């Protein structure tokens, strides 16, 4: 899992910035960038939108990156924040789809579980937890959700996330902290509600 999300320089010798620069004359080289980052971008996108829409946004991201490769800031050796920056904009265009996707998770019917009692309990708990978290995420503003999920579902550092979203690092920290607090509160209320309902 972790290794799949690790940036991999498939040919080893070239920095992203060099690959992009060279790809202006030799577009064939753009494949190197795809091989380095497609997997990470896809993994993040499918968590946000589901696998089908993820394919579309990842394809759009690479096509946009390809069209704009001459504008890449060559002083940044690693292109990951740049690519994620394009990706989050593409995802933002699918905001309704994203909400629908999360709602489906939040209200998904509990699957029938068979097996030993412990497993049944575990799976029911997991189901309740996932639905609760999805509901809490839905309660966030789009900007809060974008940042929180970028940190939770990609392997970006705070610094990289700041670059992706074009925010000062201080804003990233404060917005993230507020978003986490909201989710915590929402989860606590949700649990209390469930307890009341069961009584």
């Amino acid at each position, binding site marked *: 899992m972790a*290794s*799949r999300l*690790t*940036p*991999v*320089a*498939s*040919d*080893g*010798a*070239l*920095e*992203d910035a*060099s690959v992009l620069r*060279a790809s202006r*004359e*030799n*577009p*064939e*080289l*753009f*494949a190197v960038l*795809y*091989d*380095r980052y*497609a*997997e990470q971008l*896809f*993994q993040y996108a*499918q*968590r946000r939108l*589901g*696998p089908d829409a*993820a*394919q579309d946004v*990842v*394809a759009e991201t*690479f*096509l946009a990156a*390809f069209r704009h490769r001459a504008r890449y800031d060559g002083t940044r*050796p*690693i292109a*990951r924040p740049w690519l994620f920056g394009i990706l989050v904009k593409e995802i933002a265009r699918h905001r309704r789809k994203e909400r629908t996707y999360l709602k489906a*998770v939040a209200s998904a019917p509990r699957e029938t579980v068979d097996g030993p009692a412990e497993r049944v309990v575990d799976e029911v708990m*997991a189901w309740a*937890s*996932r639905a*609760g*978290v*999805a509901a*809490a*995420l839905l309660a966030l503003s789009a900007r809060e959700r974008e940042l*929180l999920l970028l*940190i*939770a*579902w990609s392997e970006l550092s705070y610094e990289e996330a700041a670059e992706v979203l074009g925010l000062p690092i201080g804003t990233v920290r404060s917005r993230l902290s507020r978003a*986490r607090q909201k*989710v*915590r509160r929402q*989860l606590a209320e949700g649990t209390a509600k469930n307890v009341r309902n069961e009584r």
Partner: protein
Amino acid sequence: MDEMTMIKDLGESLAREPQAPGGLRHRVLSSTRPGTATVRRPRRLGRRGLVPVAAFAAVLLAATLVVYGRGGAVEPVDASADAPRLLLAAAEAALDGPDLAPRPDQLVYVESVDSALVTEYTGGLRDRLRLTGHHRESNERQAWWSVDGTRDGLVRLRPQGSGGAWEDLPLTAPQPPAYLAGLPEDAAGMREYLYRNSHGANPRHEQAFITIGDLIRESYLPPRVLAAAFQAAAGIPGVEVVPNVADAAGRPGVAVAREDHGIRHELIFDAKTYRFLGERSIVVGRFEEQPRGTVRYASAVVRLAVVDQISQHP
């Protein structure tokens, strides 16, 4: 369980596809390959940029220049061979090299032979790319790099074995220094240096091995530093021995190699003297639809010296 862990768990449950679908790659790359006619060969200016090229100290005999093979079978790894022992022998050989003690105002001159795979294709901006084939470009290469990076340098190329005119590619200062003073002279210090100064985006062991190549390539390393680099390589997990290889100049050698993501990176040494000859990357697994055995890049150092002026030969 805190809320971040719960969000991560939710993410895992939403990740239905373990991998990006294979068709996505084709979809993206078939529309990101505009271009016109046959591609000119990318200029190989070497070092930190585009191009891997190899280097090393010590004056080696001018090699017989043979056209580098198109690749075929992959030379197998000898699992029973002792990579650390080979690297130790290489370290000892490195210690026998001359200490050139370059001055900051001088130039490091490196003469080498390199060979790279170049893809040919046709297609327009909106057209589907059509690959028309590959060809190998092999060059004789002479490079002058400023010792401290503050002076202009020069790279000179001509097709291997052509005996024709040289193409001059001027290098404008500032450039990366060709000689870094103060690099570690012991294995432990070098190991720490390699892992700390690896700036690529690769997994750490892979990057540490690659950084050794970057450090050696068209630079001057004093004997003790070079020896430390080889000793440090012995401590990198996954390093193996490939007994029978040839460098880009056709010289037989033995390689210390590390395989990652379908590519095997090799540092090649003389099979008898263990002197460093050059480097090579070869496809050994699945990599960009290239057949196994494809040599993507190879370089052999023919000569390395310190000189006072551009275009001066030792």
